[in-house]
């Protein structure tokens, strides 16, 4: 601890960063690994929480030194710093008592002090004071009262560390910048191998699904899972290290200290691909704005972390406990991922992306509309048979808005083929008001079936238009509802698309014009 005090002095006194790197590197070289970890933690400001107040410390030191309050005041006025003043008020330890405890041991003692009941901390503090020289006491006092501050940036510390151990300073800097617990961190955790063991795999491309899902082929070939619009990442636990990468080639580990727990829970040599989602701790609803704020924020407050904790929503498993799974089909990787997550404690900040249980495109299309209720943004479709190298994610998003409406007219086209366009209505009191005329979005088999039904159930016809009983309910997607005074509904829906056909839904279970008006104001 005295060595640390001296080191801090040197770092503060150094004329420039080059000197600081040298000073720190030299100090690290002189230390055993256990102390190195602590030095790196403390100089970069990874300090324990406050265990006692300055007032308590002052009272205990005055009493132990048997000095009147005015003399302590006078001393404080000269020294200007309470932790340091109190450190110097007590006698130096006797050399006969043997060497003062080292850094790791002192930190363990501080931890022990913090672990006991606040009323019982005095004895531990007094014992610690008797064995530490004043310079070391000053540091201990700062740690005790939570006034300890780091003296160098993680970047500078990593440069020094890289000089000592070799390796990639940038990777180490990321490691040092992230919150980590020096008590449980080994030197190896801080020094990733120079070969880039913590580098991510390429990210599987993700593309929006523009066309109807039917164009992808049979639904059974595709695994579907909910996607929450979080930050795409690969989380890598390897070589004792932990790194989270975003696709832009930047590690974002430091942004997500709430995931650091995974570094200890996941098996060594494991790589997970997924998305980081911040959500409301009570409702579980994702908070995209909080994610954006966290990425932009310079420092992360404890409140920020508590208000919007991060979870890794896992979509794919690339390495598991040293086995590269990339050649296995996605379905197998996904099974392994589910098994891995099931083995982790329930509080672990990870969960597999919820699989969409519905089979077949129409059912999935219907499910897609309910995704918002789950907080999902879209559905990710991945070919079950694809090895990692051929894996491509199709991002299937619901239209921005949708309503449930009932079919009232259909328009026949040229010739005997399926119907060309459909008109849908919502309720306005007891009346039905037409709001949308759509032709796109209905899968071919549905369209054929619906055409047959219209022909069989036509109640009236004017020109190409066939009137039908208002019984078939559809979800209609649209991008916006704008005012259109000349229409009966007063609204025009843009970019219309038939989303799905609710064969089982009753016509009184459709949306109202009021709902639509509300959507138009969004």
């Amino acid at each position, binding site marked *: 601890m005295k060595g640390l005090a001296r080191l801090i002095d040197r770092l503060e006194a*150094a004329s420039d960063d080059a*000197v600081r790197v040298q000073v720190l590197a*030299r100090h690290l070289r002189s230390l055993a690994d256990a102390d190195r970890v602590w030095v790196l933690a403390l100089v970069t400001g990874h300090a324990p929480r406050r265990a006692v107040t300055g007032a308590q410390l002052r009272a205990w030191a005055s009493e132990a*030194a048997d000095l009147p309050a005015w003399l302590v005041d006078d*001393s404080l006025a000269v*020294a200007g*710093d309470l932790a*340091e003043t109190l450190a*110097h008020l007590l006698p130096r330890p006797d050399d006969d008592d043997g060497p003062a405890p080292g850094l790791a041991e002192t930190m363990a003692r501080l931890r022990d002090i913090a672990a006991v009941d606040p009323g019982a901390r005095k004895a531990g503090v007094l014992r610690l004071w008797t064995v530490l020289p004043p310079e070391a006491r000053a540091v201990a006092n700062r740690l005790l009262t939570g006034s300890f501050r780091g003296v160098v940036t993680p970047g500078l510390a990593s440069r020094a560390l890289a000089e000592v151990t070799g390796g990639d300073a940038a990777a180490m800097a990321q490691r040092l910048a992230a919150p980590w617990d020096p008590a449980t961190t080994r030197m190896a955790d801080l020094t990733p191998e120079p070969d880039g063991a913590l580098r991510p795999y390429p990210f599987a491309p993700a593309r929006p699904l523009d066309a109807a899902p039917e164009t992808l082929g049979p639904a059974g070939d595709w695994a579907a899972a909910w996607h929450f619009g979080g930050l795409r990442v690969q989380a890598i636990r390897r070589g004792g290290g932990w790194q989270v990468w975003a696709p832009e080639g930047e590690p974002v580990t430091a942004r997500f200290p709430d995931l650091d727990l995974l570094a200890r829970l996941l098996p060594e040599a494991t790589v997970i691909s997924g998305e980081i989602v911040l959500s409301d701790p009570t409702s579980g609803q994702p908070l995209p704005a909080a994610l954006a704020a966290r990425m932009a924020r310079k420092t992360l407050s404890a409140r920020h972390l508590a208000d919007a904790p991060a979870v890794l929503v896992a979509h794919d498993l690339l390495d598991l406990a040293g086995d590269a799974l990339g050649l296995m089909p996605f379905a197998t990787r996904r099974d392994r991922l589910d098994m891995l997550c099931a083995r982790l404690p329930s509080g672990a900040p990870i969960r597999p992306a919820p699989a969409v249980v519905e089979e077949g495109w129409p059912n999935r299309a219907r499910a897609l509309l309910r995704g918002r209720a789950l907080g999902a943004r879209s559905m990710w479709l991945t070919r079950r048979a694809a090895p990692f190298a051929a894996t491509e994610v199709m991002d299937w998003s619901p239209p921005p808005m949708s309503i449930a409406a009932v079919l009232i007219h259909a328009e026949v086209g040229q010739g005997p083929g399926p119907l060309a366009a459909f008109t849908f209505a919502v309720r306005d009191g007891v009346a039905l008001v037409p709001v949308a005329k759509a032709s796109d979005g209905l899968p071919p088999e549905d369209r054929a079936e619906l055409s047959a039904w219209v022909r069989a159930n036509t109640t009236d016809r004017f020109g190409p238009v066939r009137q039908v009983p208002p019984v078939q309910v559809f979800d209609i997607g649209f991008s916006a509802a704008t005012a259109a005074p000349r229409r009966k509904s007063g609204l025009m829906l843009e970019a219309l698309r038939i989303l799905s056909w609710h064969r089982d839904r009753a016509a009184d279970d459709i949306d109202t014009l009021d709902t639509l008006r509300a959507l138009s104001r969004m």
Partner: protein
Amino acid sequence: MTRAPVLIVDDRGLYCPKGDFHIDPWRPVARAVTTHAHSDHARGGSAAYLATSGTAAMLRHRLGAVQVQTLDWGVPLAIGGATVSLHPSGHLPGAAQVRVEVAGEVWVVSGDYKTEADGLAEAWAPVACHGFITECTFGLPVYRWAPQSDVAADIMAWWHEVAAAGDTAVIGAYSLGKAQRLLHLLAAGGPGPLLVHPVIAASSEALVCAGYRVPRVPVLTPGAAVPQRALVLAPPQTTGAIVPAGGGRLQVAAASGWMALRGTRRRRGGGTGFTLSDHADWPGLNAAVEATGATSVRTTHGYAEAFARWLASRGLDARELGAAPAP
């Protein structure tokens, strides 16, 4: 019975009426007893000085041709109605405490002192007295020195660090006293040569002539680059002008009791600091006061008010030198 005081403070400093002499006067006087040659204690212009031979050598070095009578350690000298003797204060070679006895009443003027023996200056020893006039430059309980061997090890470690970085180490040290103490502490060897500024070399030479074993080391040539891996001792105001070894830069440190506290260190420029003081620390001051057996203590030089208040709270007749007695 009220007796005339042995020592009083007049407009020129501490004065002994019975012996008609001043001790460390701040203005020229007819006869000055000088504790040591630092400029705040030994001012030029007095007609005659009395000092140890070591201090006499330094006085001549500093002030030129002055009339100095030397007095060996512990030898009583009658001056008028007073008896004066000089006793080591440990502050620097030749530095003395002044014992003044008048009609059986003994007062000791500490001058500047330190209680830890440094191996170069004659070691401080307590002198029994009724009244003790003590300096208290570091008279607050926050000042506690580490043994000088610890400080030397600390400096040596720093020198190695600086040398390893290809830089030049410089310690700013007062040319008389601190510089020689450092020479004594560091001459045993480091990662490279130890050099001194010419001003320090001259002071050292004066001490060597007076019989002190100050290590002789190479002298810095002003304006010329310093050899690789060197440590240079130089007066504080000259350190910036030193030309570092090729390719490196200067790393300047200070060695003083004022380096003990981070706040003071920062206020004094914020460089590397080593707590190496030629003054007594808080435990030293208290131990010294107790060892003299004095019942009256007058404090001066430093935190005089606080230290006097502290001693008074311990039952001594203590007050700041020159202050009126408490009613």
